[in-house]
């Protein structure tokens, strides 16, 4: 499904300041409100200083789409993003189970799975992040393919890796 030239959000976790401006602009754009728990990108901070912007990585084989029992998930031809049909979605959570990074989650108020739609190809979170010079989220093209799926990891796994790098092996063990 996935092809060269499609937009993809590259994530450089060490650069994440934890400002959560991505959550603000994402929820404003999708929900019309500042609503961190309904943002398509969620910044996890399981350990302070290790902030992880967690969002869909557009796996080449889209296991979430495969797993959906009611055909509520599809992929955008233009962007490669996973699109959720809210009417069809029954919030069963199978897409979450199928996702190697456990990225999707059920909307806190309405009954449907929340997944990044890449804002149609011009993601607001990337703009906010680059505006501030943080560049933890960057828009790249031509990266997608098998590589992108490597980024579909749980926040726990990413936290462990980054903690080793920032805080050292010993401390990462405790975490």
């Amino acid at each position, binding site marked *: 499904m996935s092809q060269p030239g499609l937009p993809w959000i590259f994530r450089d976790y060490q650069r994440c300041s934890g400002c959560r401006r991505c959550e603000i602009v994402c929820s404003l754009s999708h929900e019309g409100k500042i*609503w*961190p728990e309904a943002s398509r990108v969620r910044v996890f901070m399981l350990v302070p200083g290790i902030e992880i912007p*967690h969002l869909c990585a557009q796996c080449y084989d889209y296991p979430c789409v495969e797993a959906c029992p009611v055909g509520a998930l599809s992929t955008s031809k233009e962007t490669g993003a996973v699109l959720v049909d809210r009417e069809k979605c029954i919030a069963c959570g199978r897409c*979450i189970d199928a996702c190697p990074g456990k990225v999707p989650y059920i909307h806190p108020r309405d009954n449907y799975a929340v997944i990044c739609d890449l804002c149609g190809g011009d993601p607001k979170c990337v703009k906010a992040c680059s505006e501030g010079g943080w560049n933890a989220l960057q828009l790249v093209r031509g990266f997608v393919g098998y590589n992108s799926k490597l980024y579909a990891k749980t926040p726990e796994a990413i936290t462990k890796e980054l903690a080793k*790098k920032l805080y050292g092996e010993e*401390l990462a063990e405790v975490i």
Partner: protein
Amino acid sequence: MRGYAGKILEVDLSTGNIKEIRIEEEILRQYIGGRGLAAKILWDRLGDRWEEIDPLGPENLLLALTGPLTGFAPGGRICISGKSPQSNGMIGSTIGGEFPVELKCAGYDGIIFTGAAEKPVYLLIKDSDVEIKDASHIWGKGARETVLTLVREARREFESRSRSRGLWKEPSMIYIGPAGERLCRVAAVTSKWAHAAGYGGYGAVMGSKKLKAVLVKGTGPLPDVFNPEGTLEYADKIVKATLKLDFFRRWGTGAAGYTVGAELSAEPVLNWQEEWHDEKSFGVDKFETFWVKRFWGDFGCAITCLKLAVIDSGPFKGAITDNPDYENQAYLGTNLGIFKPEGNIYLTALADELGFCGIQVGNLLAFAAELYQRGILTKDDLEGIELEWGNTKAFADLLRMIAERRGIGDILAEGTYRAALKISRLKSVDATAYAVTSKGIAIGAHGMRSGKDYPHYVSYSCSVQGGDHTSVAYIPLEHGSSELRAILYDSGVLCWFNFFSPEAQEHLWGLLEAVTGWKITPEEWLNVIARRILHIQRAMLLLGGPDLKWNPKVHDDVPRRWYEPLTKGPHSGKALDKSKMQEAVKEYYRVVGWDENGVPASEELKRLELDSVDKKLEQIRQSLK
């Protein structure tokens, strides 16, 4: 009512009762939130017996209050308050993080804690589910273990309550370390690794209530605002203005470590015996090498002036902290004669881990070291510690003694001013000469003798928050550094550093109106709202008690040390002038609406409809005659 969640959570830790209270819009319009609302709530509930309330007793309240702008303005902050065990008045002490945003998203503008628990507890809030939980397994634990244990526990619980909803983000939390548990008056309420509501000593208040931590997860949106488009427009302008502050963003307040010391000559060195150094090791370029993150911030923050510093080798390996920011560089660095970034980072991280306010405890350590220098405290008093200037390990050992209230640590845990009184009696000397405090609160690391830094003559002598360098008195009252402006930030509740640019400050009023729908002009703020809050805080400070009271004639002053001339650096020979101080204090009383003895004037209080404050202050007026 816009911008507010509309409810405040009230938790009685003695009985375990939890209820929701509502504050009328009229009151919120008058007191806004945070520091202002704290003054109102504390006065209404404790004002008539203020002088009898023990700050560390169950009658005191612990308040954590957001404001209408929290979450909408860049940089989330919450104001911690109560009767202060440092000043015996009330301090609005703010702390950054996502905690205030989670709280508003859970449906609460704040929390009021009353009473005291019998056994250690923590509070877990998930939207309207509020539960007091056992904290005995983490009581006595430092920051690292407390944070990691509670995050794990809470996420496990959320996930078990609602399976198949996906991964839960961690709740946000405020907590105390061992210093707060042991009622050290220099203990902070803390968050993340390096965030602290330091001024006021509220870590000890939290400890006295046996409240280890408060965790909150709010799954709703921020409250509705009056004018959504306007709110976004103003917020965006503020963010854009703040993003222009390249230098501040790049190095944070830590850049002042060299500027204030080497250039302005206003940084504490060896317990303020000096205020000048030329140590290039405290330049930005030296600290940078320890940063693993160049920008670190809290919810919505544009300035991201925190930096994540880690030491990965050598004797101080494992230390993790912010920047350190300027205050910690000064108080846990130069003021202790420590001019190596590693030692400074290590001590800052240790103070964080134990739950101390870096300013208060750094002031205290230097006070003890000067007593050691002068032979007033000896090695025997210090269980063998050789408390020489620059001895990082010795200061670390003393930090632990204070956190454990072991030996002399028990006296020092009372904070610099109270410890000075005790040691004076014990050693038959006047140790208060070495206490660089105002109204029981260690003075922030911005000196006055060179005249080059921002404080005004009245800044610390007349502040209702004593030595707090973020809330200083100023003439004229409308000055950008004035306490009346600080009250706006602390009540909003806003991050001062995200409003550092004049352009951002200009848009603040527009943002306030867009969020709340209230048209508040700078004039109304200055002459009515801020003045009301200031007078209530001043009343509480003058009432004081039960252990100490302040007499304006004696205590509306700076530490004695600042009347001694500087002996080193480009401003050598300069000192403060006592008669100039007395004149400035009188002038401040006059412009701010206090009588000639420094008591808020009767007609001023009546103008602001603060009749109960006026009535209560009659006893102070009589005693000062």
